[in-house]
């Protein structure tokens, strides 16, 4: 399905996986996240194969999949408290601050089921941001977002790179990232 791919994400670096539908962008991200085993080749993080300590590797990245990974029955704040709380201990005000940052302060007590698709994407990005992981794996982060949302996520990605984090993302169209120019990796059909 996918072969001959070599991708490297350095600290403060952004890789943009591009290519037509079905070219394997999502598959590559799922391989990098450890959901799929590559038939050939290795994936290393910090110089060590990811299989050496899978839980430690998982803790080092935050993954945004096609689905937002939110519980429809839980409120925006509960979703953040649970999913980020699994990874690190959250301060009392952190979820509310993150929700304000993504423009969901007024919807913090709404269940994810009643949020629009764009709002759910913003909430999922708030989760990615709050996780504070050094690596972000983002699958189409701009899907369903309005122009303000696209600008917001671009700024969030820029801030992650400024902190010395790395971002690997699959996107059909990539808006400009403030102060950074992503390295484009084109996957064939």
């Amino acid at each position, binding site marked *: 399905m996918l072969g001959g791919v070599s991708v490297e994400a350095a600290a403060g670096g952004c890789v943009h996986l591009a290519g037509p539908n079905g070219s394997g962008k999502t598959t590559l991200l799922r391989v990098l996240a450890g959901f799929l085993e590559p038939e050939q080749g290795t994936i290393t993080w910090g110089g060590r194969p990811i299989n050496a300590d899978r839980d430690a590797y998982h803790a080092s990245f935050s993954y945004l999949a096609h689905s937002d990974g*939110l519980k429809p029955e839980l409120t925006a704040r509960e979703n953040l408290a649970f999913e980020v709380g*699994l*990874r690190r201990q959250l301060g009392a005000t952190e979820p509310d601050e993150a929700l304000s940052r993504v423009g969901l302060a007024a919807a913090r007590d709404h269940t994810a089921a009643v949020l629009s698709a764009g709002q759910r994407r913003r909430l999922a990005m708030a989760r990615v941001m709050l996780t504070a992981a050094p690596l972000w794996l983002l699958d189409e982060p701009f899907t369903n977002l309005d122009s303000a949302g696209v600008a917001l996520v671009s700024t969030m990605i820029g801030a992650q790179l400024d902190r010395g984090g790395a971002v690997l993302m699959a996107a059909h169209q990539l808006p400009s990232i403030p102060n950074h120019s992503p390295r484009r990796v084109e996957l064939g059909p």
Partner: protein
Amino acid sequence: MTTTPLVSAATLVYRRDLLLAVRHWGQAAQPLMFFAMVTTLFPLALGPDLGELRQVAGGILWVAALLASLLGVELLFRADHVDGTLEQMMVSGQPLAMLALAKGAAHWTICGLPLVLISPLVAGGLGVPGAALCTLMLSIGLGTGILSALGAIGSALTLGLRRGSVLLSLLVLPLAMPALIFGARAVDMAIHGESARGPLLLLAAMLVLAVTLAPAAVAAALRISAE
């Protein structure tokens, strides 16, 4: 940044599943309703003679509890799989086996514990004497724990399948037979005034074995299903 300790992460999963059950109480109450209905229908079908009902009460209560447990177990991972939260749990950096154990414990609290609590009530209608109620509750408690563990393995294995419920039953029911045999026997012995210590200890041993081995098996099955 402080990493969440394993116990806190497992507690989060447990509390979240209980909260979801409260918000979806109609779905969570299905096994309890099934158990209550089946055990109430038997006296109507077999006749009101408590002496006759007493002879088959252990079997009726246990078969009803077994099938009621199976009803709930199919949904153990499905909703999390569909909305993507299961994937997020898998890459949370916490040991998946421990998170699966927390989900299993929440499932037992939601589906198994209510059966234990209601069993004395429905047992009265089947002529079970008061002296046997403790054994009944203990055996159903141990048995539903075993079924939650076995069911979690089956549920994780059939996660990616569209019509997984039939396969789930075929996978879990044969494994649950020893628990059914010893559980029903324990209740029967208690009804007849004998000591049910032997079968209860065997059930407890089975529960320890299931709870020890199931989390690792569930984690492996979930990783396969996620591919």
